[in-house]
């Protein structure tokens, strides 16, 4: 019973406090110069943010254009290199490393061999990498395996160069 009375007193007191203390901000006598200064600052800040956003948007556009240009240049270079590897008339060409047989050939060699087989071109047994007497898709797989193999290549031995 006493606790209930206390709770009622607390609630009443809290109510009294709210009523007495709320509304204390009524009649705030704020000088006009303050409103003007703050609103001018708000205006300046908003303008600054909008200008910064415009500049940022321009920068993003410029960076995108630069990235696109770089991609185009890279794509062009890749095509040129690929053509050099394939040769003007689509013939297989050995690069320096392939000529001296010190590397196992790479994925471009695999791609070129696969393309030629897909086009129905007849290739010499020089490209019979798995030594089964035929040049077919099994040789493409064998060349691919060698291209990604971590085993060291024996220098001077034919090792998958197209």
């Amino acid at each position: 019973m006493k606790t209930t009375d206390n709770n009622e007193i607390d609630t009443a007191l809290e109510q009294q406090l709210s009523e007495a203390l709320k509304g204390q901000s009524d009649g705030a006598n704020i000088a006009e110069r303050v409103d003007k200064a703050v609103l001018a600052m708000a205006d300046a800040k908003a303008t600054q943010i909008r200008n910064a956003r415009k500049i940022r948007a321009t920068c993003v556009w410029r960076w995108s254009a630069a990235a696109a240009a770089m991609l185009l240049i890279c794509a062009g270079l890749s095509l040129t290199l690929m053509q050099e590897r394939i040769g003007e008339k689509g013939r297989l060409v050995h690069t320096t490393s392939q000529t001296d047989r010190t590397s196992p050939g790479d994925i471009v060699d695999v791609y070129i061999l696969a393309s030629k087989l897909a086009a129905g071109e007849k290739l010499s047994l020089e490209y019979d990498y798995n030594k089964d007497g035929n040049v077919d898709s099994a040789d493409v797989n064998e060349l691919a395996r060698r291209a990604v193999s971590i085993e060291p290549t024996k220098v001077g031995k034919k090792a998958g160069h197209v």
Partner: protein
Amino acid sequence: MNDQAARRSDGELVEAANQGDRSAFEELYHRYRDWVFTVARRFSGNEDDACDVLQETFFYFFNKFPGFELRAQLKTFLYPVAKHMALNRSKKAAQTVPLAPEFDRILPDMPRDEQAERRELLEFVRILPEAQREVVMLRFADGLDLSEIAVTMGIPIGTVKSRLHQALAKLKENLQRQKQKKN
């Protein structure tokens, strides 16, 4: 102030202000202007200083844009800024800050008995220890809940609860003693 701005929540206004929307800045100012002024007056002791603190508080607040994130009620951000600026100003001026000066303001029209009772209550709040009085003001004058008071003052919620409990107990005791005297 247009209708669209009036409908926007604080979070939406902050978001818009981050995008450079001038009306959002203005609406935030008009929404919290009087309250910040009251807090500033509470700590600085006079209206002239409170005006300067109001201006400085909003300059500080607006300079947080863009990039300001609203994680709690905006009052929890504005209160400590206004409080510290007001106290610094008072220290610089070597003023003696009166306790909760808004209590001296004229009370609204009401019967004499009620007015006397209210004056007594305000007087008892005025003589509370500063830490307890601050919690009472934040709770009942500014309408913050306990967790918001804890964030605003940078103290644990348990401390807020105990300060509020002690303040209410003291007020209750003083009011009862006053009643007994009258009887």
